[in-house]
Each structure stands twice: as C-alpha cells, then as structure tokens.
C-alpha cells in the first residue's frame, strides 16, 4: 500500500486553505478518507457549489497533474478508455507488404505487432492509470452519460485497472485520487455509488461563504462581503427556479467591487440581480421581495 498522502483531517483542511479552497469538516474528512481507503469520491450537489473546484484544488494542493474526463451523452470507451490507432495500424500493414513485396509475411508477427502499446491511443481513464507522475482524475458530470455507459467506469473505480482484450490488463502504477461529480439530474446506479465515498456539497453557511468571498476577492471589504452574503442568503430563502450559486456570489462581489460600491442598497442590488439570477421570472420575484419587505 502506498504511503498515505495526508497526515490528518486537520492537515487536509489547512493545506486546502493554502490553495484558496475553504473546506469544512465534512469535505476535509472525506478527502482524507478517500486517500486512506483508496476509494473514489462521488461529489453531488447543486450547480456552482465548487464540486469541480474541489478536484482542481486537491490536485494543486498535492502538486499532481489533473486529468479530466468530461462526460456527455454518447460517451463511449473509445473516448473514455482507449482506442486503437487504426490508421497507423493500416500503414504498418502496408509497409510490411511493400518490404516483402509479394512474399507471404508472417501474419501472427504483424498481428502481435499492431496490437501493441505503440498503436494504442490512451484516453483520460487509461492515461490516469498508466501515469508515472502523481495525478488526480476528475470524471466530471457523470450523470450525463447513460446508465449503460456507467459500467465502463466500474472496473477502474474499484480495481484501478483497465482490461484491454488484445493486450491484457493494465494495472495502475499508483493509485490516483479520483473525483466524480454529478449535478443529480438522474439517480446514479447502485453499483457506481457503492464503489465511492459520497460527499454532498451544499450552499455554504453564511460564515463560510463570507470567508470564501474574502479569500477569493481580496479587494472586497469586510463590510461589503458581509452584506453580500446576507443578501444572497435572503435570496436563497425565496422559492426560485434556480438559486444563486457560490460562483455567482463571487461574480456579483466582483461586479460590485468594479462598480465601486461600498454599501449595497436595495436599488443597486436590484439593478445587478441579473448576475445572481439567470431567469427573468426569478429576477422579478427576487427584486420584488427585496424591496417590499417580504414579511413572513
């Protein structure tokens, strides 16, 4: 078993903080466990709560290369695992023919030859397995692939190996940290969930969100950051189609800083709402609620 990467839960949190990612107890704990148990992490939660960012930050933190597989409908093994470079294979056969000119080339030799590493195109999953240097594998938005395609991932997630019929099994030279993210547009299969540690990322608490704003945007003043996160919390309590995400909070904070606003009043908030909210009906509703005191 490889040496563990992290000392303790607290050290994970501190190190993540040093790369500007503010983790809470739960996040740090799961990352720590993933390393110790050598298991992938399945990160679920609303859009824009820092799921992808977590993987990137962890990669930065341990100085590893990030290999990313963006999932989409119709993803197949030739895009995710490996593919034979058939053009090169064809050339190889042609070349053989030219050399021997009419002579009967030994077919088995050629066959062994063309199904070798030289003709293999590695795709993200295989690349992560074969990497010599430390890597973090990010399988992004895994809920976008069809249920059947999920099965492609199972072997690599539980045994860290890829079986290639013509070549045999490629085992991992080292166990990479693996993150899977999902926006929860569909239920993932039990088989996949069972192999992963589960982490749900929700909107952060008021205090944590304020810290995030302060770390990410150093120009923002303490007073403004406080106001921003409180207004955002207020908006999240309204029933909307899509609540503002952390990244949208950050965008909004940047905008306010650019506009030179130090103290947000209702009118200014209303004018810049379109940065936080992306549906016209949401903007109207939130604007109304914020100005007319929505007494409950």
């Amino acid at each position, binding site marked *: 078993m490889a040496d563990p990467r992290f000392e303790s839960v607290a050290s994970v949190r501190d190190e993540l903080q040093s790369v500007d990612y503010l983790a809470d107890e739960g996040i740090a704990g799961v990352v720590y*466990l993933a390393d110790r148990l050598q298991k992938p992490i399945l990160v679920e939660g609303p859009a824009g709560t820092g799921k992808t960012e977590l993987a990137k930050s962890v990669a930065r933190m341990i100085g590893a290369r990030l290999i990313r597989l963006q999932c989409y409908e119709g993803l197949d093994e030739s895009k995710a695992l490996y593919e034979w470079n058939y053009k090169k294979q064809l050339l190889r056969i042609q070349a053989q023919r030219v050399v021997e000119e009419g002579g009967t080339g030994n077919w088995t030799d050629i066959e062994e030859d063309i199904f070798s590493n030289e003709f293999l195109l590695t795709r993200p999953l295989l690349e992560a397995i074969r990497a010599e240097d430390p890597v973090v594998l990010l399988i992004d938005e895994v809920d976008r692939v069809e249920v059947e395609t999920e099965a492609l991932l199972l072997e690599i997630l539980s045994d860290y190996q890829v079986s290639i019929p013509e070549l045999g099994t490629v085992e991992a030279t080292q166990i990479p940290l693996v993150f899977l993210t999902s926006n929860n547009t*569909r239920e993932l299969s039990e088989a996949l969930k069972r192999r992963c540690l589960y982490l749900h990322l929700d909107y952060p608490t008021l205090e944590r969100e304020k810290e995030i704003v302060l770390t990410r945007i150093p120009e923002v003043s303490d007073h403004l950051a406080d106001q921003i996160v409180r207004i955002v919390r207020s908006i999240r309590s309204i029933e909307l189609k899509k609540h503002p995400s952390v990244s949208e909070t950050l965008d909004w904070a940047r905008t306010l800083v650019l506009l030179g606003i130090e103290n947000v009043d209702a009118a200014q908030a209303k004018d810049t709402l379109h940065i936080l909210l992306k549906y016209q009906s949401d903007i109207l509703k939130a604007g109304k609620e914020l100005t007319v*005191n929505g007494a409950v």
Partner: protein
Amino acid sequence: MPMVDLLAGFIQELRNAGLPVSLTENLDAMEAVRHIPLDDREAFKYALAATLVKNNSHWKTFETVFEVYFSMRGAHYKITDPNASDEEIEKLVSQMMGEASGGGGLEGMTPEELAEMLYRALQAGDQNTMKAIARQAVQRFSGMEPGRPVGGTYYLYRTLRNLDLDGILERLMEEAKNEAEGGMTDLEERLAKDEYESRVDKLRKEVEAEIRRRLVADRGAEAMAKTLRKPLPEEVDFMHATRDELTMLRRAIYPLTRKLAVRLARKRRHGRKGPLDFRNTVRHSLSYGGVPAEPKFKMPRPSKPEIIVIADISGSVAAFARFTLQFVYAISAQFSKVRSFVFIDGVDEVTRFFEGVDDIQDAIHRINAEADVIWVDGHSDYGHAFETFYERWGKEITKKSTVILLGDARNNYHASQAWVIKAIEQRARHVYWLNPEPKAYWDTGDSIVSEYGAHCDGVFECRNLKQLEKFVEHLG
C-alpha cells in the same frame, strides 16, 4: 460492546429507518472508522456518512439516527459530547449577566430573567448561552416525566410556547429599528430579520436536540430510534402529510420532475432505431467505394401524447390532486398538450390557469378560488361530474389523448355513471385511474373504484411521490 457490534447495531438501525446499506458499504464504514480518531465526534460522523449514505435526501434520517444511537454512549467510547461542560456554561452566563454572578446561575432565575437573557443571547448571537438556555428551558417548561409515553413533539411544543419566540423576534426587530440611525431601509430590515430568524431557528434545534437527549436517557437509544423514524420524503403519504411534510414535498417535487424530464427526453431520443434511410446510406457508401458498409437509419419521431387530467379536488384528496397537477405541468414539455379539469360535484376546465404561468403554486391558488366545481352541495359526485364532462368536452377526446382520472372514487353513494368512462375509453388512446388510497381500502364503504376501473387501462395506487414518479415515467 466492541466497535464492530456497535457499528453493526447502528447499521441495523439505519436499515430499519429505510436506508439501503449494502454489505460493501458496511465493510467500508468499518474500515473508515479505523482511520479516524474516535474522540472526534464530527469526523466520526462524517466518516460514517461518507461510506453509508449515498443519497442526500437520506442525510436527515441518518443524522437523527446517529444522534440518537450514539448520544448515550459518549462516556464509554470516548465519543465526547462537543458541548462545553455545565460549569463552563454557568461561568459564561454569570459573566454575561454581570450582577447575577454566584447566584446559582440559570436555575435560580425567574422566568422573566430567563426571557431577558434569551433575548440578549439572540441579539448577540451567542451560541454557548443559547445552548445553556435551551437546556434550562427544556428542564423547566417541557414538563417531562420519566416513563410517560408522550412523543417528543409534545414537549417541543410546550417548551417553545413558554419561550414565546415570536414575541422575542418582534422585540429584536423593534430594537434593531430603533438603533439604526435614520431608520432602516426595507432591504436592511429584511436582512436583519433573516439573521434573527436563523438564530431563533438554531435555538429551536438546540431545544429539539436537548429533548431528544433526555428522551434517550429515559427510554434507551433503541426504543427512541424507533419512535423517531420518519419516512423519506419520496415515501410520505399524500393523504396524511402534516404541514411540514407538505412543504418538504413541495420542495422535493421540483428536482424530481427535472430528473424525470431529462429521462423522458433521453428515452425519446434513444429509443429504438427507425427504418433504413436509403438516401443517407447510399451517400455514405461513396466513401467505401460504393459498398454500403455503414447502413444509416431514420430517426424515429414518436408522437408526444396529449394528456387530459381530470382531478377530484374535494377536501380529502385535494393535496394529491395538487401534487399530481404540479407534476404533470412541470414536465408538460414532454407532452404535446396538457388539459386539466377539476371537479367536486360539478366540473370545470382549468387549463387556462396554467397557461403562461411560471409559478404553478399561483395557478393552484387560482383554481381553488375561481374554478366552478360545485353543483349542489360540494360533496364528491363522480357520476354527475363525469357525465357533465362528457357532454361538454367528450367530443374533444381523440385517439391521441391519454386520459388520467384522479380520485379516491368515494362517491357518497351517488349513481356511478360508469358508462361515461367506457365511452371515454373508446375514444381515447388510454385511460388511467390514480387512487391515493391504499389498495386495502378500495371498494370499502362508498368507494367504487373497481366499477370505474373495469373500463380503464390501468388503476394505480398512488400514495407518494415515488409511485407518482413511476406512473408519469410510464406515460412519457
């Protein structure tokens, strides 16, 4: 008890509460806790959660079971309570009150003093004092007696009534308004209110936790875990949902419909392949020197069904009809057309309320206020409603329409007029009946569901979101 048994017991409790925990996950949890310092209760909890809970809607159940199961075992297994010890709190209290130092702390205070202190603690957002007050309040007001078989909600209600949180909230707002120079803008007022409300909410949670702790001490963890078991949101019964549960259901319904819409759209796109597309195949054969090596198929374009919902909205089944309508409209893009009708003993079309409306809740309010559904006395009369429906709109049902009837078929012993359903079935593509009652109650008393059901393509029990989702998926 060794750790293995302790965990096994915990997992058993989780399974009893309805969480699916597989053997692998069980083993993972055992492995995980070996890497976690046991005296760190939070880390312990997250380690268990990461390995055992794979669905966010199960988190709350997990948390409750965890709190109860491990609350009484602190001392034995060094899972220490993160709360500061009592003496420390007393010290804090006396510091805060200043004058009352040494006077026995909270116990010696009058209710007025306690209220005053709660007010100050909330104003300052002082967590520790709030915790102490929560404890004191439960001890003083809940009237808990050992062995009394009363649920936790009763104690919670009694405690909170005595604390008068609404009054305090009002006072806090007044005070905040007075303090602000030149008055508060609406926005500031709203923000202040949000802040205080979240503090009050925290206090409420403290009180709940304290009551739970005491109940566990009284009855034992295993017994408590049983009484605290709550159904998962997708399994809450529509007909017997409490107000809180209804709010929870309303929140759960949106993500569920979104998932379903994605699934239906996908199913439509990736369904079976269509017939051979000759032109396209020949065109592609050119790159293979005229050999049709890569046959191309036409994409099928399945027609979207037209949905007609006819819902009983009389008292007992109103919640069910509301959720079903909400569900159907949320994925209306998956259907070519949705029309809806509601009835009690008269029937009215309500499609217009949903048109161009963003917020389905609004539409449902308007239905309740404006739809003309009462004919004589406002008691369900399925027979008359169906007859009127057929007379006025029956011609508009075509071979493309799928008709969904919602109701418990409790007809108050009126004439059933089941021939209408038969006539509808002959015109429509499908007719389905959804009944929110458990199957065991069908055809008891004045329920005549099988008389109607005989003419339907299917009668489904539909008591919770899970069943509803399954049915709607089957439609698309």
